[in-house]
Each structure stands twice: as structure tokens, then as C-alpha cells.
């Protein structure tokens, strides 16, 4: 009970101040039938720090660690090198153990950090403004669709086949309850994105078109014609970025006139963590500010005229607007936003561009090498650090078999789109700065043997 500082003598003294004869008196409002008379049976008792660490370490050892093997998984979560100072700084107690900055005079550290984060995210996404974070990319994507409905007062959203299938799933779940109509599609295992098909679908009922950039197969296309087509019908273009490092190399969706840009910020500072916690990025044009979900930090002055920061525009949020709020989100991803922001500060623009360049160069080399494996075809003409292979046979068991050989080969489209035969041979391969030429050689060799 090392985390409980009261001594038995303290407890007795406090009970006497309260005027209670026992702790049970304080639980007198609990109906007798529901009172537990002691610790819940068949659950273990308290344990030492050593014992807990031993137990958790044993569980951790049952996992294959990405850093221990040639590793090529992406599809919405990317392995990048995170500088040591990032994790050190986010573990400072004043960041780690602070609450939401509701008392700004004693939360300027968190607030200034959020203001800097908002600036970095808006710059990266190419949007006028960005909020103080969402849970993750998938929920940010759904919130953007809901926001487009409020702005356009229309209920039909068109989702690109290149949008991450989990993001599509989340949107489908939510749309069942909000009444939005979603027009969805599967990706096609080819070099071209579905931009032309999306343009053809836009009509006067369309609230928004949602397109991922680069898409789930890693393909990149100019979003400008799509933005123009949306705006011609008074619909919004929502762009989704699951790999923010890409925006150090390719034009931002905001530059191509997307109205709302959302993203998964995990690549910078956060780490893989088996899927969470991550950090949702959310930016948009300033004219749509009042319809945005989530928190914003804004600049102001204090009573002495000094610059300071506060949470602002709160009247959109649930704690004030209750059932009329733009979203029910409350807690967001503050600490992950801090990690993102520190990593971005360490990189700076020059570093981000260099990092992006290395990712792309590594991916180009890997694609060229893997294309030489008999039976393997690189599907993409364009990509950043992730591309799709058609390996000529069902990829999911191949990924499984390669894991046994100590190679985590990528994400099979069979895992992402179970039961879709036309996609079953697809393997999505991500190549970041953490991948060495030896890793690529190991993958090529293992793949060659598996396909032989």
C-alpha cells in the first residue's frame, strides 16, 4: 500500500474529527444489500514494486519488439526514431501530472506549449488554424465529417477508397446514429487513386469528400482538382494525413485548398505503443472556426499587460453548451501533443525536410530492390515512405510466415480488408529512416523464399 500515506493513527484521529465511529459509517448511504464486506474474493492482494515489474516484464517479453527485427509495418502507425530528450521532457512532473489548464495563471507551461503546437500543426497541414488535439486520427476524421454536416447542412459524405479502413469503420459506426449517409468504396490495387471517381460523385447533397493523402496504399495525388470540384458544389474537402512526416516532402493539403485537414500525429514523438495513445491533428480554414470540435488555446494579456495564454472559444464545448456542443470530447491527447511538439521543435523545418527526404530515399531504394523479387510487383507510381506490393499470392499467410523467420514484413491488405479477394495479394510496406539496407535485404530474401 505504498501509495497510501495515511497511518492507522491518522485514520482514527480523522474519524474522531468527523464524528464517525468507523469507516463503515461513511459508507452508510450504500444500501446494505450492495455493501461488500471485504476485499473482492478471487482477486489477488497488493504486491511489491518488484513483483509488479516482474509480472509486467514477463508480459512484455511475449511480444515481438519492432526494434529487434527488420520492420516494415505502417498503415496508420509509423516507427520513427524519437530523440531521447522528448521522452525526458514529457516525464517532467509539471507536464506529466498537471491537469487540463483551467487555471491559466498556474498553467502557462501547458498553455504556451499548446499555442506552439497549434502553430506547428497549422503550418504543417497548411491550414489557417489548428486545435489543441483530438484522441487520434480516426476520431478526428469522424469529427471533421460531422463538422462538414453542420456547416453545409447536408448529410451525404463521400469517402475515398484510399481512406484507412479503420477510419471508414469509425465513420460508419457514428453515421448509423447521426443519420449521415456515407458513400464508401474499396481501394483498387493499381497505380491510380480514385480522385476522378470522387469528382464524378459530388452532387448538391454532398457535405464533404474525405480523401487520404498519401492514401492507404501509399499513393499520392494532387488534391487541387478535387478541392475545386467540391467548392463548385459548395461541398467541403476533408484531407486525412496518417503520416505527418510526409508533409516535410509533399505539398500540404491546405495549400491545395482543402477546407479541413485532419491527421494522426503519432509519427512525431509518440511511438507505436500498440495503437494508443496517439494524437489527432485537426486544422481548418478560419471561417469554419466556430464549428470545430475540441479545445483551443489563445493568446491574451494578464492584468499587468504581460502576454499569456488561456483556453478559449469554450462555448462550443460540452461543459458549457451541453447538448448543443459541437462534440462531446473533453480530455484530449495533451501529453502526446507535447511529445509531437518537442519532436517538431527539435527537427525544425530543415530537420523535418531532411527526415522526410531520408524516408523517401529509403523507400525508393526498398521499392526498387523488392521489385526484383520474382513474382512481386510494385503497385505504386507515386509514394512517400510507404508503397504496396502485389505479391501474386495471398499476403496475410506470407506475413505470418515471415514473422516466424523474424521479419515483420508489412501490413497485408487481407488484414485490413478481410474477405476481399481482389485485395488479398496486396502487402503495404513502410520504409522509414529506421530501416537499414540490411533490413530491406532480409525482407527481400525472406519474401523470395516464401514465394518460391
Amino acid at each position, binding site marked *: 500500500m505504498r501509495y497510501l500515506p495515511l497511518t492507522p493513527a491518522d485514520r482514527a484521529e480523522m474519524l474522531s474529527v468527523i464524528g464517525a465511529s468507523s469507516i463503515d459509517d461513511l459508507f452508510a448511504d450504500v444500501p446494505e444489500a450492495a455493501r461488500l464486506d471485504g476485499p473482492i474474493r478471487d482477486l489477488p492482494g497488493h504486491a511489491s514494486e518488484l513483483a509488479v515489474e516482474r509480472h509486467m516484464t514477463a508480459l512484455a517479453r511475449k511480444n515481438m519488439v519492432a526494434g529487434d527485427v527488420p520492420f516494415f509495418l505502417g498503415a496508420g502507425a509509423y516507427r520513427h526514431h524519437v530523440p531521447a530528450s522528448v521522452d525526458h521532457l514529457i516525464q517532467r512532473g509539471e507536464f506529466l501530472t*498537471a491537469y487540463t489548464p483551467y487555471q491559466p495563471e498556474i498553467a502557462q507551461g501547458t498553455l504556451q506549449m499548446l499555442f506552439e503546437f497549434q502553430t506547428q500543426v497549422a503550418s504543417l497541414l497548411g491550414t489557417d488554424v489548428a486545435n489543441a488535439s483530438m484522441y487520434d486520427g480516426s476520431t478526428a476524421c469522424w469529427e471533421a465529417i460531422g463538422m462538414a454536416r453542420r456547416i453545409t447542412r447536408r448529410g451525404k459524405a463521400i469517402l475515398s477508397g484510399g481512406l484507412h479502413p479503420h477510419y471508414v469503420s469509425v465513420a*460508419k459506426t457514428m453515421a448509423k446514429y447521426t443519420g449521415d449517409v456515407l458513400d464508401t468504396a474499396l481501394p483498387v490495387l493499381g497505380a491510380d487513386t480514385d480522385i476522378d471517381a470522387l469528382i464524378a460523385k459530388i452532387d448538391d447533397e454532398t457535405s464533404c469528400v474525405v480523401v487520404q493523402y498519401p492514401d492507404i496504399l501509399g499513393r499520392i495525388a494532387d488534391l487541387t482538382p478535387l478541392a475545386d470540384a467540391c467548392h463548385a458544389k459548395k461541398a467541403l474537402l476533408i484531407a486525412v494525413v496518417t503520416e505527418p512526416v510526409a508533409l516535410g516532402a509533399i505539398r500540404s493539403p491546405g495549400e491545395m485548398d482543402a477546407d479541413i485537414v485532419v491527421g494522426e500525429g503519432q509519427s512525431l514523438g509518440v511511438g507505436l505503443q500498440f495503437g494508443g495513445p496517439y494524437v489527432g491533428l485537426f486544422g481548418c480554414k478560419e471561417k469554419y472556426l466556430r464549428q470545430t470540435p475540441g479545445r483551443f488555446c489563445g493568446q491574451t494579456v494578464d492584468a499587468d499587460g504581460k502576454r499569456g495564454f488561456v483556453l478559449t472559444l469554450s462555448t462550443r464545448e460540452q461543459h458549457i453548451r451541453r447538448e448543443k456542443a459541437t462534440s462531446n470530447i473533453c480530455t484530449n491527447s495533451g501529453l502526446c501533443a507535447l511529445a509531437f511538439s518537442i519532436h517538431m521543435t527539435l527537427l525544425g523545418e530543415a530537420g523535418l525536410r531532411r527526415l522526410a527526404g531520408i524516408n*523517401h*530515399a529509403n523507400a525508393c531504394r526498398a521499392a526498387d530492390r523488392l521489385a526484383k523479387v520474382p513474382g512481386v510487383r510494385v503497385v505504386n507510381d507515386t509514394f512517400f515512405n510507404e508503397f504496396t506490393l502485389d505479391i501474386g499470392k495471398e499476403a496475410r499467410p506470407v506475413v505470418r510466415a515471415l514473422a516466424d523467420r523474424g521479419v515483420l514484413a508489412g501490413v497485408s491488405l487481407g488484414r485490413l480488408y478481410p474477405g476481399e479477394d481482389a485485395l488479398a495479394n496486396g502487402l503495404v510496406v513502410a520504409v522509414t529512416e529506421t530501416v537499414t539496407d540490411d533490413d530491406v535485404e532480409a525482407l527481400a530474401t525472406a519474401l523470395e523464399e516464401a514465394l518460391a
Partner: protein
Amino acid sequence: MALNQSGWRPSTPQQGDGAPATFTGNRALMLEEPLIFEIGSTETTGVDFAAGDVAGSRLGDLTRTAPIGLAGLSEQETVRHYTRLSRQNYAIDLGLFPLGSCTMKHNPRLNEKVARLPGFADVHPLQPVDTVQGALGVINELAMWLIKLTGMYGVAMSPKAGAHGELCGILCIKAALEKRGEGHRKVVLVPESAHGTNPATAAFAGFTVEDIPATADGRVDTAALKARLGPDVAAVMITNPNTCGLFERDLKEISDAVHAAGGYVYCDGANFNAIVGRVRPGDLGVDAMHINLHKTFSTPHGGGGPGSGPVVLSEALAPFGPLPFTARTADGYVHLIEEERAEEFSNEHFDGTLDSFGRMTAFHGQMGMFTRALAYILSHGADGLRQVAEDAVLNANYVLRSLEDTLDAPFAASGPCMHEAIFSDRGLAEGFSTIDVAKGLIDEGFHPMTMYFPLVVHGAMLVEPTETESKAALDQFIGALRSVAERAKAGDMALKTAPHFAPRARLDETLAARKPVLRWKPPVAVAEAAE
């Protein structure tokens, strides 16, 4: 004798007469810190990369050529920037953080250590399932604890925070109603004292929200609630212990009535900390309840997240829970049930069919929070968790009874409080309100209590000390709050301009909202915009 040659002649420090302005604006250890954009440059980087050519060729014609505007700092400057910023924050590591309803308790560092084990931190969510048995094992083990601690049937682990968990529970209810052919039930009853997330969540899922009044003793008006039940009511959302810090004595009776009328009971579990190990919500007839792992199970709040909001479910709602989930089979293997395998496992685990309402998030939820929460739970064990609730309630009652002679405690006569004590602004001098007490507490070195919530108490001050405070810390806090309250009752004008010793004085929130400045812009751009 040899005379002191250095010129340094130690003497007793003299008392100063006020603080002079400094050249830097700093105040010794309190350091002013500019924005990174004001001290860094787009050419600076704190990261080294391998040398070599990085010419890319597969970007289409989309190379980003325009400036992005991201300032960089060297590593040393980065460490200093964020260290300086951190020192402008209050935190639970610095002192008692009595923010009612938020449960700011000590965050054990063991939890941080285990979450960073490479076997958890460096694992991809889409790795083949047999390469992540340890990660799935953590989820499954934590799920088992949550089910047993709450006396419920199942648990949905993927919700990302409390409000996301609420949404999960409400969607389960909606799915269950639709399955029964009763999708026409559109009304969700929510007590006036509820967290704002409750009505926001219900409205988001397409329900109409109706308020249920509170009685004078601070609890839900059971008679009014029962009278409102009927064929149009889908669910009741109730917080227990409630936001006034009181146990809802009638919850079982309410649950029975709601069930008899064909509805479901959602319990906001934000305050589960007060009853863990003493009461199981399942025994009170609850159908769904989210658990904020960052409250009850001490994962750090991180300045506003990340949270994690698993939802425990009754037998009636469990089949409708979200994907994915885990299931351990007799051979010890932990299966991950995603979209494609739901059918297969519905036969194994449910008599009926599994009818998941779908996916709420990419991947599997807040794994990094699961490892921390599990380490916390294992550390306490069943006996320690019961002690958590007892000490949390003891501490809150101690604060309540120690201050009720000074501050108005509207429900002091309603019996013991649970984990938080509530006071009102009644009795403060004319023109003084809760905010003045709060800002005065800042100068005393404490984070203020929750202000003006719940709405049912005028000028509410909601104090939640939590179980991780010693008696000495509580006594100091009680003394400080008593002192500030006495000053507010006496009309001490110095409180109106408090805080005096924080990094900033009161901030102009009106200015921030009227003319929002939400990002830094280069001075040139600011000047142009002003023209």
C-alpha cells in the same frame, strides 16, 4: 590580522522594500520564456541525420517548395525551453490538487517505467496476433479486473477517454433498443448536476435530453424520475457517487424502475474512485459505466490527456459492444476479435448472437494507459483498492467537517460525503465570489478546487483531496482554505487581484475570445493583417 582582501563582506540580509523591475523580466527562478518561433529559426535543427544524397523521385509533381514556417531549436535550447515552460505549471507532483470530479492523485513512476518497456512501447498494432500475445494479455488481464471490480458481465476496452466511453455506452443502448425493435425510444434522462459530457453524448447519438431535478439534499429526485419513465425513455444517465459528492442511495430502486419501464441505466463512472472495492455497480443494476483510467487507476492526466475510458457492460448490453475485443481461450491464447471473426466468437461467448455496433477508433484503444493502470491495480490488489476508496472518502469528510464552520456546506446535513466535499459562496462579502477564493488559494501554493460546478450549487467549490494525501498535507490545505475564506468573508480587496505570486496575474479571457489569436504569425504578417 590579515584583512579580507576579496571585498565580499558577509552580513545579515536586509529586508527589501518591494521588488524592483528586472532587465530580463525574470524573477530569479521564475523565468520568462519566449515562443519557439521567436527564438528559433527554420534553419536550426537539434537532430543529426546520416549524410548522403536524398534525392527522391516518386512524389509525383507534389514536392513541397513553399516555406513551412517551422522554427527549430538545438537540443540544448529545446531542453531549456520546455524545462522553463514546465516550471510555470502547477502539478500533483508539486502539491495537493483538490480539483473536484477530476481525481488528481499521485501518479506512481513504476507505471511510467512498465509502459516504456520495449515490449509494450515498441509494438505495432497490426503485427500478427501471435507476435503480440503479451500486449493482448495486458488488455485481457485488465479487462478481467475491471469486470470483477464492477460486478459486470463484459467490458469494452477501446474508448479513448471518459466522454468516448460514454458514447460507447450510449451506442450500446441504442443498438440494444434497435435490436428489440424499440428504436422509437428517444429520450435520455439526465440529472441537472451531470457532467456536460452526458447531455452532449446523448444528443450526439440522436437522443433528446431531458433534465431530472435534484432534491434539496443534493440527490436525484427519485419520484420525479420515476414519474417521467415511459415507453419513450431509452435510458437514464446517472453519476454515482454524484457530482455533489453524494452516494445515490436510490440507484438500485431507480435501476429496477428503469428496467421495468424498458429502459437502460448508464452510470457515469468518473467518481468510481470513491467506491472501488466497497460497492460493485453491477449490484446496483447498472447496464453500462465508463471508468476513467486516468482518475480511478491513476494514469497521468498529462495536462489534458490522454485519457482512457473502458466501459463495463451488463449481460443485456455486452453483445453490442464495439470491436475489437480480446478473448482468452482455454489454451491460454488471447484472440483479437476484429470485424471478420466476430461471428466465430459470438457462438463461443454468447448464447445469442454477437451484435457489435462497430468500431469506435482505429486499432485497440489506449494501450499505454492499460499498462499503467494494470501496474497500479496489481500494486494495490483487491485489498489496497478497497483502502483507496476508504481513504478517499475519509479525506473528503475530514475536509468537509473541518471547514463547515467557515464555508457554507449546502449538503452537510445530508450525511457523510463520498470522495469530494462541496461548499458554496454563501456568506462571502458582497462582490466576492468563488473565483476570488480560488485565486487566493493559488497564492497559498495550491491548485484551486473545481469552481462553479456542479451548477445546482451557487458558486460551487468542489474539493476532492483523493486518497494519496497525508493528514499533514490536508491540514495545511484546510488551514489555507480557511484563511482565504475568512478574507473573502471580510471583503479583503487584495483577493480581487489575486494571484499575486503566480507567473501571471489574472488573464483577460474576454480579449482572447473576442479577437482569437490561435497561432503565432511572423510580425510582418501581423502588421499586414492590421492594415
